């Protein structure tokens, strides 16, 4: 009997050891990737790097301002479109889960989430780039917005579904009209969750290269016009890393470092904000 119990305890200990080992193991790739990019990229970054356009082949120096500005503008425009649309759809899905429309649009959201980003790029190419006759930042934003939508929709829906029905009843019983119940009670109470979805969607699309290949295309010069081709961080990394020049490789490493830091900071920022703004139910 005692032997049996010892054997069982040993099995439990081994099992625990295995899951702890794997939990630890999954942090290793992240640390290695982080470490390597920091090592390669951190010394490329200085004020000059952040405020200048890339230098032509053969010249030293040069920076990534065109990609920084481009990524910022394109993601902003995409967010301005995707956030309200995504939130509205998310609110509908959480409010009317049993309707036919909710079933089919929920299905579409799931499928949209699974569509490869390059396919989104091709579609936007045929819808916007071809009719307009030119690559443009706005078409890049359209592609990014499509990528953001499912994340914003699902996070809004999931957050609002967690709120108790009693909250809505409390507002309705005071004679508050439905739209005000949603805007003044439901959305503010779920704000932390919705915000974290938005931030994660931004972090996700800022690193997307594929949908921008046929849309924003890239631009070695600084451009603010959304109807003209525009550079972006991931696209700059792609073009410069695949070039045969060492200077350009360094530029790509520096850009990778900046992109990685941005995503990292955004994730940490989200965690802190959601903790701070989380509503105590």
């Amino acid at each position: 009997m005692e032997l049996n119990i010892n054997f069982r305890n040993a099995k439990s200990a081994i099992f625990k050891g295995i899951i702890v080992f794997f939990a630890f193991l999954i942090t290793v790739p992240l640390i290695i990737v982080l470490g390597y990019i920091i090592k390669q990229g951190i010394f490329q970054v200085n004020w000059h790097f952040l405020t200048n356009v890339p230098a032509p082949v053969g010249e030293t120096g040069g920076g990534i301002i065109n990609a920084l500005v481009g990524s910022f503008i394109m993601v902003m425009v995409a967010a301005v479109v995707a956030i309200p649309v995504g939130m509205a759809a998310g609110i509908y899905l959480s409010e009317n889960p049993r309707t036919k429309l909710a079933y089919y649009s929920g299905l579409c959201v799931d499928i949209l989430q699974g569509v490869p980003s390059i396919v989104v790029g091709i579609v936007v190419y045929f819808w916007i780039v071809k009719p307009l006759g030119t690559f443009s930042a706005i078409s890049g934003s359209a592609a990014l917005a499509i990528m953001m939508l499912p994340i914003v929709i699902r996070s809004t829906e999931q957050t609002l579904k967690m709120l108790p029905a009693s909250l809505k009843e409390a507002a309705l019983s005071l004679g508050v009209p439905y739209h005000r119940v949603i805007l003044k009670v439901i959305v503010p109470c779920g704000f932390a969750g919705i915000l974290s979805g938005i931030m994660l969607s931004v972090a996700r699309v800022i690193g997307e290269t594929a949908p921008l290949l046929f849309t924003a295309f890239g631009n070695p010069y600084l451009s603010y016009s959304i109807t003209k081709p525009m550079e972006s961080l991931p696209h700059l990394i792609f073009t410069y890393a695949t070039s045969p020049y060492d200077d350009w490789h360094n530029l790509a490493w520096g850009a990778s470092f900046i992109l990685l830091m941005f995503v990292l900071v955004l994730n940490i920022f989200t965690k802190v904000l959601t903790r701070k703004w989380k509503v105590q139910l």
Partner: protein
Amino acid sequence: MESTIVKAENYNSYFGDNHVVKDVNISINKNEVIAVMGPSGCGKTTFLRGINRMHELIPNATSKGKILLDGENVYDMNAIYVRSKIGMVFQRPNPFPNLSIYENVVAGYLLNGIKISKADKDVIVEKSLTSSALWKEVKDSLHKKGTFLSGGQQQRLCIARAIAMQPELILFDEPTSALDPISTSSVEALFHELKANYTLIIVTHNMQQAARVSDRTAFFYMGELVEFDDTKQMFTNPSDQRTQNYITGRFS
């Protein structure tokens, strides 16, 4: 003195095909405390939610008949107007977690976008919290979130929120079933004070509570209003066998 404030005429409620409240006729006077009791699933909460038109918010829920509030059928009025005229307190305390205690009390004004001055708000907050016997406990922490209060305090905050809208009638849906005995007695004590200014309809499945707090009691069974009489009369000498059975605990 005795004037009718709420009157139900052949009132019926349904969930889909399920007939939950059957042909209820009842007349409730001003400044009365009415207890509505009955076993689980007897339709008492559904009846209560019919009065301020909360019932129809549930998918597939419908109703027939009339509920007259001051002689006017609530089903001919705008539902939003009806709900702002009738206060409601729920089973579980549900203060708005994103609002402070102060904002919770005036939530009916804030959320409806009714503009009132800061001074008026201050008056309403103090008056409502005093009426709900919570003022002394929270007057120094009005700007803390309402969800930091204890369950009983939260429930009194919800009562203050209902009072702040100056309703004539307040509906209570098992208001103490989620509270501990001490909080329960503080809420019950409040009913006696509220009676002076408001009409209260309290759904409860706690018979002792019905006996303690109400002037008249309505007994619901299987969706029917079986008996409606003075509370004393009802608990000592009920006229219907079913009431007798329920009170003596022969079914629950």
